[in-house]
């Protein structure tokens, strides 16, 4: 889960391995702010699997790659 300068840099780093998923850092920031927003809240309780999946879905992170385990 790392940052890269460009698609070319990702391809070079993969060195022939099967790629995962690439998103812009703006989309990552949306994801991070939605995912971690409540982490320091005194009323925090663990996210249910469906709650986390709903976060991914709401950001358009769909498909098998972004499907959490049941």
């Amino acid at each position, binding site marked *: *889960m*790392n*940052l*890269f*300068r*460009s*698609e070319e*840099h*990702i391809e*070079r*780093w993969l060195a022939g*391995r099967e*790629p*995962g*998923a*690439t*998103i*812009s*850092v*703006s*989309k*990552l*920031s*949306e*994801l*991070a*702010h*939605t*995912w*971690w*927003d409540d*982490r*320091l809240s*005194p009323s*925090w*309780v*663990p996210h249910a699997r469906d709650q986390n999946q709903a976060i*991914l879905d709401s950001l358009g992170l769909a498909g*098998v*790659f*972004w*499907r*959490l*385990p049941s």
Partner: protein
Amino acid sequence: MDARDLEVRRTTYRRFVELGRAPRSDELGDRTEVRASWRRLHDEHALVLDPAGELLMANPFSAVPTPYRVEADGRSWYGNCAWDAIGICAALHADGRIATSCHDCGETIDLRIENGRPDDDGLLFHCLVPAAHWWDDIVFT
């Protein structure tokens, strides 16, 4: 994970933020009880322990230095990955600055997060492991 474990978790996170580093189990109360709570929290993926039973991750915070140094709210921490580094700003509800580098070429990246938005949208985030397998090996993920 019961109410007592959640209280240990709250205290763990609060001290992590206050100290700018991971608290040791003996800094939070009775060492044996704290470590037993941490183990249950670890098993529920609420935090991650190292083989010795001390904190490795209180996600998004890392207990050990990583390539993702985060400055926010006048202090600094390490994130476990790029997602977590921005997540530290999100959890603190603060602007921040992430000092890292391109994972391929090593060129320095100085990313600022202001009002929830990064100042350089040319950067890309690559996630190698599918979501179904993130917790198979969370350190590798």
